[in-house]
């Protein structure tokens, strides 16, 4: 149990630049096209997740605009039912599986978590890179299918028996269920990386009760992903088996059960909502603290709320199935559970009010987006309370009222905090400030357009317009409300264009940001912007929840990590005491090659079960390559540093 000579020592100024040079050489990522595929650094992979997910936000937005264009008048002949069904299925699947989760969970998480922890890289960096390539693979399969007129057309939920072999011949539904497999494996991989990073790579001194709220939330979501994703993979996997090899899991004619599919899907589907919303809430907590210029009020209640949301989120799924006719008593249980989730969400809202109230609010651009979140999500959350009530739900379920509700929740809970987060961390990512004037234009255009479109949809739902109809009769009196709803698209599009212009412009000529332009407390602001490949010159230690605000100038740092190999520090889960050193595996082409072979097997199994036996050997070969021992015996660590415990 001997912990060797102090691994925590006071900072020494001598040789800083020499150390930086050596670390930069050791942690350098390969360049060039080949190097791009070998890169395993979390800031690069995180940015890739964000940029790719943003591209799919734009593509999903184009589909949304097509939907609004089709519905702008009754009996529109713009799209037939076949294309329209593909378009709305693609819109939902793209936004949920290719945008919201990869952006809010994977993108922000992979980029920020190691920086906030004070780590040099994410845990399991190769698994992390592999997850990115697999996500891209799933995205290409889905969009490749759509562009070749094989886009799924059974809704993003793909209910059986409509998606089963009898009612969906061809390969459209298979493409949907394999896309699920791709993206869920990707999310699971990242969940493992993030949970491990948070639990084992925190800077010494960052005990669990000093962890920033954002890390708490990422930990809870990682766990939620680990428990929720298997359910949908079972659902889509059994569906694929039904379609590919004629198992009858969901075929009522052969004793299969169509409701089982719904239970499995929503057991994933509802926690998914919190997987998307909690990152947004955590961004808001971070920003409210920073721009109120004070510690967040109610750290403990907020953390308890986040953890509680993670748990309660798993017990509400039946509220998606109230109309199937379950016994009233069991429905009441799920009403109660659905209402209960208001308590932790309300807790966070109350703590934000108090933090602002007792603080000094600087209403800068990211904070403006937080207020957008508060307004929009509040409406979505409250209409969610209405939907928790069985009788009301039975009326508005599967109408445009619900469409309005979940766009308020998801755009409110993900898109508004995402823009807040992007404007907030833009200086860290690029080294330059985003232009606040353009950002304000972006905000108001988007905010007005969003409310114009989606508030209107509530009324359409109450007037009886069901979801997923490709057209409607002029006799239904839905015309003008649809025109109003569609007009909001113009504003939202304009807002997004302003945002893109802002990013392109500010990235090149924006004001130089410096390390910590907002004066925030998180460790991610301790290094230069953008972060160097080794993140921290010295692994920091912390002595409070808000390190950059509280830590004295002579706060110790970790020394004793080698600078000639990629050494990282592993700390204990609870108290973050240094435990041992580990070596980061470094860049490698194998994650990419493995992703290729796995993708080939997944794509092949859309068409034939033989893809499994034929596709497995290449996967095994690439895995062997990935795991092949590197042979070098690490140079024995000098006595004073060979610390184990």
């Amino acid at each position: 149990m001997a912990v060797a000579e102090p691994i925590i020592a006071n900072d020494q100024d001598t040789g800083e630049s020499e150390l930086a040079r050596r670390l930069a050489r050791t942690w350098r990522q390969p360049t060039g096209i080949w190097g791009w595929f070998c890169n395993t650094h979390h800031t690069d992979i995180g940015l890739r997740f964000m940029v790719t997910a943003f591209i799919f936000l734009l593509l999903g937005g184009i589909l949304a605009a097509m939907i609004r264009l089709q519905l702008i008048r009754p009996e529109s002949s713009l799209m037939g039912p076949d294309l329209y069904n593909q378009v709305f299925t693609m819109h939902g699947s793209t936004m949920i599986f290719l945008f919201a989760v990869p952006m809010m969970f994977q993108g922000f998480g992979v980029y920020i978590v190691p920086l906030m922890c004070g780590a040099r890289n994410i845990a399991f960096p190769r698994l992390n890179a592999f997850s990115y390539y697999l996500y891209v693979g799933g995205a290409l399969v889905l969009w490749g299918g759509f562009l070749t007129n094989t886009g799924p057309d059974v809704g993003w939920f793909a209910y059986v028996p409509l998606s089963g072999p009898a009612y969906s011949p061809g390969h459209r539904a298979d493409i949907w269920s394999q896309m699920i497999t791709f993206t869920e494996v990707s999310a699971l991989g990242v969940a493992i990386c993030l949970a491990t990073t948070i639990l084992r790579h925190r800077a010494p001194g960052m005990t669990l009760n000093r962890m920033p709220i954002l890390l708490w939330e990422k930990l809870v979501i990682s766990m939620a992903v680990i428990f929720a994703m298997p359910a949908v993979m079972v659902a889509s996997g059994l569906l694929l088996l039904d379609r590919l090899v004629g198992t009858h899991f969901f075929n009522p004619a052969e004793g299969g059960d169509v409701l089982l599919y719904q239970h499995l899907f929503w057991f994933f589907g509802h926690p998914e909502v919190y997987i998307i919303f909690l990152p947004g809430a955590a961004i808001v907590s971070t920003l409210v603290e920073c721009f109120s210029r004070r510690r967040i009020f109610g750290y403990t209640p907020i953390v308890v709320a986040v953890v509680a949301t993670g748990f309660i989120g798993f017990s509400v799924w039946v509220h998606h199935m109230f109309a199937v006719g379950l016994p009233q008593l069991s429905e009441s249980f799920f009403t109660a559970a659905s209402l209960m989730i208001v308590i932790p969400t309300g807790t966070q809202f109350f703590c934000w009010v108090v933090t602002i109230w007792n603080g000094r609010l600087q209403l800068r651009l990211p904070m403006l987006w937080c207020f957008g979140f508060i307004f929009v999500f509040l409406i979505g959350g409250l209409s969610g309370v209405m939907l928790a009530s069985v009788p009301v739900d039975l009326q508005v379920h599967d109408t445009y009222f619900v469409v309005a509700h979940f766009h308020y929740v998801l755009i409110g809970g993900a898109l508004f905090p995402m823009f807040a987060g992007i404007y907030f961390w833009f200086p860290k990512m690029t080294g330059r400030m985003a232009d606040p004037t353009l950002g304000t234009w972006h905000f108001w255009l988007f905010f007005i357009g969003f409310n114009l479109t989606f508030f209107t949809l509530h009324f359409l739902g109450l007037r009886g317009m069901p979801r997923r109809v490709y057209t409607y009769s002029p006799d239904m009196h839905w015309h003008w409300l649809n025109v109003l709803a569609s007009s909001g698209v113009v504003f939202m599009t304009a807002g997004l264009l302003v945002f893109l212009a802002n990013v392109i412009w500010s990235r090149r000529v924006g004001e130089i940001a410096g390390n910590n332009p907002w004066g925030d407390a998180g460790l991610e602001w301790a290094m230069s912007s953008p972060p160097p490949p080794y993140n921290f010159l010295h692994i920091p230690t912390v002595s409070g929840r808000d390190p950059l605000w509280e830590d004295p100038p002579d706060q110790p740092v970790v020394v004793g990590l080698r600078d000639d190999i990629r050494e990282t520090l592993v700390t204990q889960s609870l108290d973050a005491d240094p435990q041992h050193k580990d070596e980061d595996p470094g860049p490698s082409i194998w994650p990419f090659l493995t992703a290729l072979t796995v993708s080939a097997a997944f794509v092949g199994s859309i068409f034939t079960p033989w893809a499994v036996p034929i596709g497995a050997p290449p996967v095994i070969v690439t895995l062997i390559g990935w795991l092949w021992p590197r042979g070098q015996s690490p140079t024995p660590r000098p006595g004073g540093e060979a610390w184990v415990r």
Partner: protein
Amino acid sequence: MNAELNFVSFRLVAQAMPVDPGHHHVLQPAAPQAGNIEWLYWVVFWILFAVFALMLAGFATATAKARVISSRPLPIIEDEEGDHRARWALGSALSITVITLFVILVLSVVTGKRVEGLSSKNPVTIQITGHQWWWEVTYPNSQADQTITTANEIHVPLNTPVVVLTNSADVIHSFWAPSITGKRDLVPGYSSAFWFQVAKAGIYHGQCAEFCGLQHAHMGLSVIAETADKFQEWQQRQIKLAAEPSTSEAIRGRGVFLTHACLMCHTIRGTDAGSHLGPDLTHVASRKMIAAETLPNTAGALAGWIVDPQRIKPGTLMSPNPLAPDDLQALVVYLQSLQ
């Protein structure tokens, strides 16, 4: 010929019976079920509106109180005492939240019981079976020849409980007539039951609410609530076998029906046509609309539909029927005689 007919039928869509806006609206109930839900909706709405206003007021006041204009990060402040006071605020806000939620829960469960609990006797029982993309409606009777089978039109007597048994022949559909009551999914492999009771005479529109494939949009129905006398009268007419054609053209039309693809899917009781894949046409002329509320039941629309249903409802399971013009004419005359 076909193109012309289709043109005619498309124009006719626009002249179809307009839905009375009050007869397809969650907040304009015509039945105690929808009425109870409407009441609950407004109670919960105003509670939540108050919550919304209070929360916004909280944020607005906090912003007005705390706002400082500065583009440079301000120093960090500490306010232990303020936080201590705020604990009480947080505690009371959470208590109020819990109480409010509990009130909503109780209101919701009580309303649910009022909507679902069947108290009256002697209900009318209806079996509704969902098909891609129409509704099969049966009024079962222990005597087979007293059973009524129709499609897309549900006649019910006023102020009488109607028990609906649900089923589906293919995928999941959902029965929904917003002015009458909430949804009920028709799930293959599961039969379930619910009930409603219409209080105001009228024609209420309904629509499939669960995505069911290509023509989910054109899967409408109507609930026709009429006095007990009128309902009885309707029932007696529907029980009868199909009317014998009386004119030579109608006789020829029946021949067309029985020698073409029609009888592969449809039933006309009293003739040799007895297949149950498509709607029962024994009294098709008594219905106001055809093709699951897609077209008005007029000669032109009927002809256009028979010749090329795929043009009007792409993906529908009915195939095109390229009939000679006078055959088509005769067939339409025959179908229109099936009162």
